[in-house]
């Protein structure tokens, strides 16, 4: 193809747009993982709290807490991990709250998503971005 000045400009704009796109806006893998948990149902807004650090000093051990009063179960997904599944909490009759905390691995800066299944079969979601720092001093 003949590279005219106009085409070159358009090409340049396209490349720029690509470069400025936010990192992984939820990959197909995380959509699939979520669909497996929700059976494809939409997850809406609701009473669900997801607590993650704004900045994780190391991606190997990132604390995460979720709380969704009344939830039957809560699943956590890491949108930027090679395998987005993190954990599923299923609450029994003796759970005093529908909350739990754990520690997870994040492969880099990414969105963490929590989805709660409610007793009526509906789903609610919350998401936070966690920045994972890559230090100068490894090893």
């Amino acid at each position, binding site marked *: 193809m003949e590279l005219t000045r106009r085409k070159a400009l358009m090409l340049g704009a396209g490349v720029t747009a690509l470069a400025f796109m936010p990192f992984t806006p939820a990959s197909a893998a995380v959509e699939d993982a979520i669909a497996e948990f929700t059976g494809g149902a939409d997850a809406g807004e609701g009473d669900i709290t997801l607590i993650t650090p704004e900045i994780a000093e190391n991606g190997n051990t990132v604390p995460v807490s979720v709380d969704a009063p009344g939830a039957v179960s809560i699943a956590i997904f890491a949108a930027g991990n090679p395998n987005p599944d993190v954990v599923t909490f299923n609450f029994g009759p003796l759970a005093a709250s529908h909350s739990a*905390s754990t520690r997870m691995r994040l492969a880099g800066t990414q969105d963490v998503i929590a989805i709660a299944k409610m007793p009526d079969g509906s789903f609610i979601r919350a998401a936070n971005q966690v920045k994972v720092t890559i230090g100068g001093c490894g090893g």
Partner: protein
Amino acid sequence: MAKGVKPRVKVPKSASAGDTITIKTLISHKMESGQRKDGDGNPIPRSIINRFTCEFNGQSVIDINLDAAISTNPYFEFEAKVPEAGEFKFTWYDDDGSVYEEIKSIAVN
């Protein structure tokens, strides 16, 4: 059984009937994710604890499915109701078929 697996559980020794208590659990485990490669470039197979349960007198408090993104030495914190005196039973299920158990009694005053 994976080497050096050892549970560590925090449960109060006593509570009042109907109280809510906080439970913390840690267990030593590599949680090999299956994403890493050895020195020769061969993938290291996944070897994780894939399920953790906590029951009180046979009734479920929490039943957790773990994936490979859970950190080495898995940690959980959650809240339980204590309707009566009895035993908390904690069970970790390893990919290799091993099962690790810990029992903690609680008195009701």
